[in-house]
């Protein structure tokens, strides 16, 4: 056991011969009472905590379940958004491909139109030549 002598801790040995004055005895008695009180408080707190333990465990289980639900919800929304985004990307790609194809068709149409114009001009020329030959 450790006691305070002149406010300094001192470890009592079984062989120590201690003589206490009445005042010192009273001080040690008060110190002992204070320690007993602190011990009793600690013991009571422990009892109360033990009583609270099942409730705390229950609350922890509930929090874990809620956490798990929130995580599942986030995973679900993340998967959904990722899928939607991929789908949107594909749509955008198809749209670009379709635009490219339309532009290519427009170009081909312009080329064919030019060829057709040339053919018309040629036919007109041939008709004119034939008419002139007939006149001669």
């Amino acid at each position: 056991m450790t006691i305070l002598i002149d406010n300094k801790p001192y470890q009592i040995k079984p062989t120590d011969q201690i003589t206490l004055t009445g005042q010192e005895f009273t001080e040690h008695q008060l110190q002992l009472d204070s320690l007993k009180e602190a011990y009793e408080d600690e013991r009571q707190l422990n009892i109360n905590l033990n009583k609270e333990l099942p409730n705390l465990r229950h609350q922890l289980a509930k929090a874990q379940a809620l956490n798990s639900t929130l995580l599942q919800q986030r995973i679900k929304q993340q998967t959904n958004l990722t899928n939607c985004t991929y789908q949107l990307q594909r749509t955008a790609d198809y749209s670009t491909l379709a635009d490219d194809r339309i532009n290519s068709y427009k170009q081909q149409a312009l080329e064919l139109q030019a060829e057709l114009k040339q053919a018309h001009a040629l036919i007109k020329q041939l008709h004119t030549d034939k008419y002139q030959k007939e006149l001669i």
Partner: protein
Amino acid sequence: MSEHQSLLLELISTSNVAALADYIIQYPISFTELEEIANQNLPINSRELTQFLMEVADTILGDYYDHLNR
């Protein structure tokens, strides 16, 4: 366009990743809704939009793990 889509459009237009992630966790988005929004006059092109949405998707879970590790 619904109120839900208008809010989504605003969050996308302002490139607010965290706010959009928080919103989507509670109010999921469907492809049809997203496609309609993408066809609006957005300040970003389709490639930037998909990159932004992937960032939002990463934040949905990343933010959760950050919160757990705090």
